């Protein structure tokens, strides 16, 4: 198996999957040329991600990355999430093969977009 046991576990049992109604922030990212897509939803409490949900379309690693990210970012300050790096998401999966790095990138991009959206709404 070319994927880590952690990735496989997230793929088989994705956490926090599905739509969130009335989120405090939502954002998505699509990997061009590949079509893989992740959409993240955030509900904040005291400026921190109290609840996270995701939706995604793509290969197994993208679904697993979105699931892992939903756990990774729980409780973190939204200001911190606007800078989330793909590397952190990849580490949460115990690594990705070179040709699947985009899974972490698209998910980190969706988290950053959702955090920016939350900040924008808070400022509005």
């Amino acid at each position, binding site marked *: 198996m070319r994927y880590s046991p952690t990735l496989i576990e997230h793929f088989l049992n994705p956490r926090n999957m599905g739509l969130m109604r009335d989120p405090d922030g939502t954002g998505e990212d699509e*990997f061009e*040329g*590949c079509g893989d897509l992740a*959409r993240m939803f955030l509900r904040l409490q005291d400026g921190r991600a109290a609840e996270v949900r995701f939706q995604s379309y793509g290969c*197994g690693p993208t679904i697993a990355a*979105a699931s892992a990210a939903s756990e990774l970012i729980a409780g973190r300050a939204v200001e911190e999430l606007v800078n989330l790096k793909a590397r952190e998401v990849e580490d949460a999966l115990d690594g990705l093969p070179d*040709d*699947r790095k985009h899974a972490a990138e698209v998910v980190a991009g969706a988290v950053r977009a959702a955090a920016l959206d939350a900040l924008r709404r808070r400022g509005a």
Partner: protein
Amino acid sequence: MSRRVYLDHNASTPVHPEVLAEMVPYFGDVFGNPSSVHGFGRAAREAVDVARDRVATFLCARPDEIVFTSGGTESDNFGVKGLAWARGGGHVITSKIEHHAVLRTCQALEAQGFDVTYLPVDETGMIDLDDVRRALRPDTIAISIMHANSEVGTIQPVRAIGALARERGIAFHVDAVQTFGKVEIDVEAFNIDLLSFSGHKIYGPKGVAGLYIRKGTKMVSVQHGGEHERRRRAGTENVPGIVGLGKAVEVRAREMKDEAVRLTALRDRLWEGVRARVPDVRLNGHPTERVPGTANIAYKNVESESIVLGLDLKGIAVSAGSACTAGSVEPSYVLVAMGVPLEWAMGAVRASLGRSTTAEDIDYVVESVEPIVRKLRAALPVGAA
């Protein structure tokens, strides 16, 4: 994971135990070079000749019309380039859904000044004989059409195309890698001049294949060196491989007919089972004119690779219709040529059954695929894909 189900026989097959047993002595005791005149060499030559006879009989050809090669790709290169280079220029007809071994060879010929027509196919993957007729030109030198496509299994009307080619005096090459040993091929009745076939798709070893070349066909060699294979393909013969290919053909001649009936029923059981349980699915390929064990099923709005991964984790081996490499995903060019819409083409999964496949295997796959697809669809963003 306990259960393992291999449904990727169009990619490769396990070596049949009888084939392996027949090959073993040729790695040890009978190791001579078939070109050597001494006893060691003669023993190897004899074994190669037996294999050649078996293949020739199977194809309704003559033994001296069979050339052994290293694989289907070499056979296709040899067939198409050999015909074209022997004529020096002109027009070649092929199709948009050929294996890359033919497609890229034709592209290479274009770079050398040849003209190539790539025929379209209909929504079932079938070539229209009228399109072949319309594509013919006074300078057409060759037609190369696959017998069946590996992804969707649609069987082309090669008999009718062969008749047309013969009537016009045009050389006709058939890539039969996916049908050899699975459906009947008679090079005489089908008016085929060249035919590519391979060992590892029919429970023979990898690294051995062949090209049938009708006696009198104007050809040049592609690989130069010694005088092997009647000066048509240089290189010491892969004796154990050729012995294995010969034995595999003998076994296929014995098993092919019954297995075709059994696999057709199983592949239909797979499709009916999936269709009954999973919404938004479609079968790619011709409903009836199809290689017995091939079922290409598309799951709308799901990425085929995630289905392949999900099934792999259940011990089931199938193959994805779209391939994601280094972050760029391409839908299958075969499905694109068939006009399959992108939201379906991206979710195409091929199951190719074989001699070990059972009804229980198929039922297990049907049971396994439904929750995987349901879960993947549950993750979809609304309005995405």
